[in-house]
């Protein structure tokens, strides 16, 4: 997910992405932002955050742990907003979505 400085919610999104760096995929030991799992953050409704993300594998046994991790970092950061976690499978996650840091950690 790319962040534009012209985005009206730049500050919130930047804070959210920094916090989401703390959520690690326990299999790969890489955070979900660098893995490219976070597709979108929507702060347009002042009462909620819609976080659209995917996972590397549908029905992965660790998906509950990852979604809990997202809630655990986002809820204290934005206590006045309700987190709406939207897990999607389209577009399907692929390697091009990873950051250079993530690729480096995987040995590329």
């Amino acid at each position, binding site marked *: 997910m790319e962040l534009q400085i012209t985005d009206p919610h730049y500050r919130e999104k930047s804070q959210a992405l920094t916090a989401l760096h*703390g*959520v*690690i995929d*326990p*299999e*790969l*030991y890489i955070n979900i932002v660098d893995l490219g799992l976070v597709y979108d953050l929507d702060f347009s409704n002042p009462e909620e955050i819609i976080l659209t993300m995917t996972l*590397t*594998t*549908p*029905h*992965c*046994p*660790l*998906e*509950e*742990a*990852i*979604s*809990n*991790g*997202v*809630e*655990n*970092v986002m809820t204290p950061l934005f206590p006045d907003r309700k987190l709406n*976690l*939207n*897990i*999607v*499978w389209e577009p399907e996650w692929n*390697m091009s979505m*990873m950051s250079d840091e993530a*690729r480096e950690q*995987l*040995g*590329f």
Partner: protein
Amino acid sequence: MNPAIGNTPKEYAVVPFYATAAVVFFIFTLLMFIAAPQFAAHYFHGKTLALVHTAALGWATMIIFGAAYQLLPVIFERNLYSSILALASYFFLLAGSILLIFSFWYFFLSWGMISGGISVIVAVLLYCFNVFKTADFKKNKLNIQNYFIISSALYLLITCTIGLLLVINLAYPFFNISHLEILKLHAHLGIVGWFLQLITGISVRLVPMFLLSKSNKSHLLSLSFIFQNVGILGFTLDRYFTGSPARSTLYLILVGVGIFYWLFYLRDTYKNRLKRKVEVQMKFAFISFGFLIASLFVALLILNFSDIQWSTLYGTFIFLGWISAIILGKTFKTLPFIIWNTRYKTLHGKMKLPMPKDLYIEQWIHYQYKLFVAAMLLLTIGIVSNILLIIKAGLFLWILIATLYIINIFKILFHKKQLTDGTSNNRSTLP
């Protein structure tokens, strides 16, 4: 919970299988050492039958059931139908395995042996019911990976039903054809139908997941499915109805072609992997494929030469070289994650947590791997040259492998929460 997120199976549906399999594996290695002279004798002997069923039921099928209950949601992309039924299957499989192994070891041809067979069948029926209800193929479209899992479950049921008939025939003979002929069908339906198809189905889902890879060559899997099934069904029906081994080489080749199509698919996922570093757990998988291929060549020797050692070597390659190797590696790609999930999933993101790999001693898996290579080398030399001392040396190394394995497994199972506040270095252990 987010509706897009599935429920993981309950801990009690998975963990007892892993714990019991580890204990049985350790006992199995001790029994092999005690019964080492059987490695130079004909396979139709009580102690050999006990060893084979300890490996096939108490070790391999036990841990495969546990892994399958954990992974069926990943494979079918929907929740496990019932954790309770999974637990029930555990008790029946455990009771059946104990009764059968004990009866074979002392060769008690009694109702204890038959009860063991019935108990295993009940466990298998419960497993099949859970698989079919999870697959829910009336509502959902299945892919080729799913077909492998479903067919393997059916083969397991057929294998165990024939096994029950065999133990009844031992106590109360009623077969009008050779017991040993039916035993061969029972063994190969189990090896090719159950183990091979189950491992094929699970591996083609997990290996890409572990290597972060993808293959678009699913036609290889379809071909693998066709060849494996034509081979094993042809062998079974031909041997049953004609009693002739004349076409056995053909069926062996058909199964072999099926295996190669599967391995070509895995090679493609390996070539396309994103995770460049290959972990030792995956090395176990790769060496296990080598032993599977080697067992095909040994099977050719069995078909052409009547020497006892080729049958022993074949069984050794199948149960130790292939199935045990793949389990020794894959256990550490599943169990630490299962336990980590139960301990830490609600705490993820709140504080610095140990990762699944921190739940066991990874270095020991490297030792296990080296011991495995040495043990298989010694066993192969010992069996081919028929030297008991070398066989015993190989079997002693297997005891060491099982010791490392069981300690690591129980280290994972008894892991207590270790919490480190991300802002400080205070570490505490919680119950």
